[in-house]
């Protein structure tokens, strides 16, 4: 089980907003594939998947604000 964590995005950036998930719950994802897009300030940021596996749980939906370091989702590795 791998926790997908919102990483540090830069100095002074404490949170980001989910624009959308490229992968839905229950779907397979490969390492480094696009997983979720977030927005902060005038930037969008694509978070790639940290590993290959099945995305079993998503904790934040489109439009939700997430703090740096929070767990966004869970991937069960194969």
């Amino acid at each position, binding site marked *: 089980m791998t926790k997908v964590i919102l990483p*540090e*995005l*830069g*100095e*002074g*950036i404490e949170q980001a907003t989910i*624009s959308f998930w490229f992968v839905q719950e229950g779907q397979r994802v490969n390492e*480094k594939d*696009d997983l979720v*897009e977030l*927005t*902060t*300030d*005038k*930037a*969008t*940021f*694509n978070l*790639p998947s940290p590993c290959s596996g099945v995305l079993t749980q998503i904790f934040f939906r489109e439009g939700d604000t997430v703090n740096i370091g929070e767990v966004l989702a869970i991937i069960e590795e194969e």
Partner: protein
Amino acid sequence: MESKIFDLGLVDFASARRFQQEIFQQVKDGILKSALIICSHYPVITLGRNYKEQNIKVNLQKLKKMNIKVVKTERGGDVTYHGPGQLIAYPIFNLVYLKKDIHWYLRALEKLIIDVLAEFGIFARRIPRLTGVWVKEDKIASIGIAIKNWVTFHGLAINVKEDDLFNFSLIRPCGMDIIMTSVESVLKKRVSIDEVKLVLTRRWQDDQGNLTRIG
């Protein structure tokens, strides 16, 4: 690895977008170290990820009659307008080799614009929490970026020609009631896109020697 500058001239938004994708891939794959794509666009209204429909003030049919396209994009921010009177720059950088910091990168782009404008004798500035570049209270340049695998695309637009500012009245730029200004409006004289392009590309090349300097 080398850094390249591509001047596309006056080009429609979609073609420039496709070209950006190609160059993005080359930077991502390490074929190019970085790139600067410069161009101007035919009139177009672009919608960033955070756009709200009410920030386009006229109906789509009117825009069609005016030959202004409306395009959704993956950049950050709300709605903006691009036209032939602006100089557009799309810097494609791999931030892994510079600094993995979105704020640092946004501030670096603002610094680049402020330095370019200073060469024309314009005192431009940042306003905290309002990404972009301002002359007094008016906006002279806009920024909207996207980052994938820490490689940047999209970028900045500097308003150069005064006669192109009118079309900003069709929208609420960035979802705010702001006044847009231009290089020509501030200097009260004619300035060509090419003049600004020359300064921008020269500064870009200067900064290649020590990229951290642009921060």
